[in-house]
């Protein structure tokens, strides 16, 4: 029974918040999919990529020539590309959420003033507009804050992982070991 109730609650929320809330929900869903995908990659795929890069590097006999230096750059850059895939999009979506909230505020306020211009003191009509103005703002804020927290953490993790990879591909293994 609780699923039905939850569905009713969500539907009521969306009805009160208007169409902008749907867009925010979509953006948030995409954002969280990307965040979860990154977390999953850091847990599983990255280890595999790391090992592969390491193997590729260790397979070379020559580690210090100009050619090797370029190839190392290629390997590290490949890992970086994998690590940072989608991070830019997460950042963009985080930035979009408050904007969408503001859009909802403005469209809601337009509705309020429409009611006011049409005939003064229809408080109930105005309240519908006000809820359309405030709910998307709140939703946008919540989505942006939650996304922001994870985005920062993910970036830090990706950066440190990339550094770890480049540290492990040693230029002069003969001397260091």
């Amino acid at each position, binding site marked *: 029974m609780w699923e039905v109730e939850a569905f009713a609650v969500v539907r009521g929320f969306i009805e009160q918040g208007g169409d902008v809330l749907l867009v925010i929900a979509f953006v948030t869903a995409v954002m969280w999919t990307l965040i979860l995908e990154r977390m999953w990659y850091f847990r599983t795929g990255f280890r595999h990529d790391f090992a592969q890069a390491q193997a590729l590097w260790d397979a070379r006999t020559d580690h210090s020539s100009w050619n090797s230096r370029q190839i190392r*750059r290629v390997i590290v850059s490949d890992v970086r*590309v994998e690590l940072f895939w989608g991070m830019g999009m997460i950042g963009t979506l985080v930035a979009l959420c408050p904007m969408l909230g503001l859009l909802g505020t403005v469209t809601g*306020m337009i509705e309020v003033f429409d009611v006011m211009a049409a005939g003064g003191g229809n408080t109930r009509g105005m309240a519908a507009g006000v809820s359309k103005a405030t709910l998307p703002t709140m939703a946008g804020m919540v989505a942006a804050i939650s996304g922001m927290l994870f985005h920062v953490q993910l970036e830090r993790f990706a950066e440190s992982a990339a550094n770890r990879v480049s540290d492990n591909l040693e230029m002069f293994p003969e001397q260091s070991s």
Partner: protein
Amino acid sequence: MRTLLTTLLLFFVLWPTAALLAEETASPPKASKPQPRSLDELLIMVSEGYETEREINRRRVEEFIKNRDHQERLLADAMAVISREEAKSQILEVEYNENELAIGTSQARMTERLGELGELFGVVRQVAADLGAQTWNSLTSSDGGSQQELLDRLGRSTELPTTADLEKLWLELQREITKQGKVSRYRTTVLTIEGTQEEREVIRAGPFSAISNGRYLLWEPEDQLLRELGRQPPSNHLDTAESFANATTYFAKFSVDPSRGGLLLALIDTPSRTERVQQGGAVGAVIIVLGVVALIVGVWRWIVIAITSSKISAQRNSETIDVNNPLGRILEVAERNANFDTETLELKLDEVVLRESSKLENFLWLVKTVSVISPLLGLLGTVTGMIQTFQAITLFGAGDPKMMAGGISQALVTTMLGLIVAIPLVLLSDTLANSVRKLIDILDEKSAGLIALRSEKDNVGG
């Protein structure tokens, strides 16, 4: 000497006075009156005048005395009339008071005998007035046949309604009930959007909504006409009107206006999408133009970058060098300068990479800038709109929200437009920047790596 002077002076002063007196006493024909030629003559004229004057006065007195007797007689007559009329008035007053009493008792007897009939009279008046107002404002009147004069007469009259009237009122109520309960199809005059009156087939669903030619109509009580709505409801409701008109089944879907025209009227007041955009004013127009330009540029760059990207990945997988893409051009430079030492080659490569990456980044600044500027422009519109609003408040006071509506809608619409333009552009510019960065990474790092691999392969092969 002195006495002579005084006499002369007196003479000169008195002469005109005497002349004046002579003129006044003289009879009207002035011209015929001889002018006195000397003082003696004047004296004679004055004495003559005195004589005639006395004669006239004497006659006047005689006449007056005669008249006085006559007036006294008249007065006596009038007095007699007054006393007679007063006596009559007293009699009438007594009669009036008696009648008043009689009326009072008669009225009391009447109300007593009316009893519940009086209440019925009130109810009939009220019902007639209510029904009159209702049918006057109702769509059902478009069907014709409502007896507005009868209802008006019953609603206003101060007399007891006749049995025939009562029966007619009952009939009217019954007719209204039947009409409201029905979906009916009939021909009637419709005021079209062009302003002409046309005889059309109309379908009316009870007292709620009427349609003709698949368009909603509104009842105009003043003209007792159906008017075609200039702005029709959204298509999902309009479609039901179309299908309802052509319905062949017993049940059909149809959007009615339960407020009996109120919602349709509100529809006319709410501005359409284009009107809404026009409320944004000059700032809104600037935002839209900038947004469209940036969107076109962004899409164009997107296509260019996608093509370049696919060419680059093709180049990475192919052995032959093709100069139709940046990576190919870099590899070509590396190939051409293969005999140089690595330092020089790297410098040369850096140069080419810089050139190619600047080519890729072309016009991206435009998309980026517009995506940042458009919310700012929206804010500008907000501020100018609020300035308008406050000017309106200064002029007309804050009592009428309609006076402020123009500025407020400008403020809100520009903000909305700014955001609507900014949101896709932010996405677009970030996507473009990301893919360009990726391509430059490839050019920057992988080109060198590819050269290295190539040279190694050559070494191994050679």
